């Protein structure tokens, strides 16, 4: 019997989302197939993460960045230079009311300084306190009007403020965070769209986990989201996916235990990079359109993997 090749045809298409302004702008999304299977030039963007409160980061980052760690603008510049990343994520972790509780004004100043220091698009993360992030990301959106930054991220408890201020009043992009909950991912996109945010202005932060820490669930969530968007042509799930693996990857025992605590595991920096690259690679082949890592070596490795896959 002759071999009959069967091809699964998709009607749907992932939205193209442009982030950044002017010459620095990049586009993510646009694919009509699962990752790397089409011929439409699917290319994952790679971002590097910095923080305004990196005190708890592994010692290797002190060696890499030195005093720049204390100055977000210098830190941002160095991170982009050392990693060759396509964009940068700045975590305004100091805003956390249960931590340093830094003021909105100070954090906005940090965001503005970082944006001015780099020539790549900027993604701005709050402190993961829904109430504070609503105020903070609203103020950031206003201060960086026309810079087309990504507000990372709106959750169920603050999507109205962040959606209305960010995407509608000040022309930014809004990320919708659903923490590995596929139904919530769809729901948040519907709610943002009902609010009046254009679907082209939404990206999805569907969540992640470090490889080996329940990643199967992340993988199946990404698969189902992509299959719904492409196969069922579900317009409420055709937004590009942006995934930050940096915090998860650098907070599991493999990337935290010192060489004194776990001598048989070898060099801590290499372990952290290993965790991060493994997790990021899995997300990239799972469908992330933009992937964010912490270590410059991780960024370079993932970039070369993507280049190799595209061929």
């Amino acid at each position, binding site marked *: 019997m002759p071999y009959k090749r069967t091809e699964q045809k998709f009607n749907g298409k992932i939205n193209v989302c442009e982030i950044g302004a002017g010459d620095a702008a990049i586009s993510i999304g646009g694919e009509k197939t699962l990752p790397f299977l089409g011929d439409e030039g699917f290319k994952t963007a790679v971002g590097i993460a910095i923080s305004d409160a990196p005190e708890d980061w592994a010692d290797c980052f002190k060696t890499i960045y030195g005093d720049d760690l204390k100055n977000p603008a210098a830190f941002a510049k160095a991170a982009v230079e050392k990693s060759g990343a396509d964009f940068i994520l700045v975590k305004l972790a100091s805003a956390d009311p249960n931590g340093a509780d830094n003021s909105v004004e100070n954090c906005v100043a940090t965001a503005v300084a970082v944006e001015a220091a780099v020539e790549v698009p900027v993604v701005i993360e709050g402190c993961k306190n829904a109430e504070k992030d609503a105020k903070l990301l609203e103020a950031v959106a206003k201060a960086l009007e026309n810079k087309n930054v990504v507000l990372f991220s709106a959750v169920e408890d603050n999507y109205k403020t962040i959606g209305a201020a960010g995407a509608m009043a000040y022309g930014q992009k809004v990320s919708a965070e659903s923490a590995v909950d*596929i139904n*919530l991912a*769809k729901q948040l996109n*519907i*709610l943002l769209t009902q609010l009046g945010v254009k679907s082209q202005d939404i990206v999805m932060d569907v969540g992640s986990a470090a490889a080996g820490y329940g990643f199967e669930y992340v993988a199946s969530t990404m698969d189902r989201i992509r299959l719904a968007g492409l196969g069922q042509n579900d317009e409420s799930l055709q937004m590009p996916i942006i995934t930050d693996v940096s915090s998860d990857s650098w907070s599991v025992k493999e990337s935290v235990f010192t060489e004194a605590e776990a001598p048989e595991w070898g060099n801590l920096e290499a372990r952290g990079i290993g965790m991060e690259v493994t997790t990021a690679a899995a997300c990239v082949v799972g469908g992330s359109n933009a992937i964010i890592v912490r270590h410059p070596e991780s960024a370079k490795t993932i970039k070369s993997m993507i280049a190799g896959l595209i061929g």
Partner: protein
Amino acid sequence: MSKFMVIGERIHCISPAIRQAFADRNPDPILLRAKEQLTAGADYLDLNIGPAERDGEDLMQWGVKLLQENFDNVPLALDTANMKAIEAGIKVYNRAKGKPIVNSADAGDRIGYLDLAAANDAMCIALCSKEGVPADNDERIMYCSELLERGMEHGMEPTDMLFDPLFIVIKGMQDKLMDVLEAIQMITDMGLLTTGGLSNVSNGAPKHIRPLLDSATIAMAIQCGFSSAIVNPCDRRLMETVVACDIIKNNILYADSVLEF
């Protein structure tokens, strides 16, 4: 599985307003009904111009262009007894959002509609009947097989044929309705797609009863594999039932706001 396909039935020459609009080539009443149905969730629109013996070709082309130009190439079912009009409609039809559907062939005098669909790379609704409503499922499946064979002989993909088991009216033929559901299951088990004019089920029942009968019937039919129907999408209860069934069958992804369409 792909989600249930809703073909909106409301652009039909049996309505006096639509008949008049066709005669006058007046776009407004037609565009209004199209918009209502698409907003309510219709996937395809049926364009029924009636017998249209005199100016069918011109009328069908006018209707196809009108709807597709105003609603982003909405896919259409072309519905008339005038075969030349269907062919004329397909000539100006834009396939960007889906193939045209020829409505409809049967195993009797209308078998030529299947040849027409095959010759024009269109889909076709195939009524499992020859003259009137089939007596039982032996007849339904016999006609279904005849139509399938004919379509395939002419080069059609089996999935381009939508087999209609002919829904019967509850008021008068209540005892035969389970047969129709069984036929849907049998046709589905053959790997084929189905459709049907659902409103027939509740024909003659009071207005407030019809949505209940229609939505219960469609839920039971979908359980048997029913894959599309020609319905009034403005029946909210019916459309909510279709979405709920699609969720239960895992054809679409659940979200809390999924019924806010």
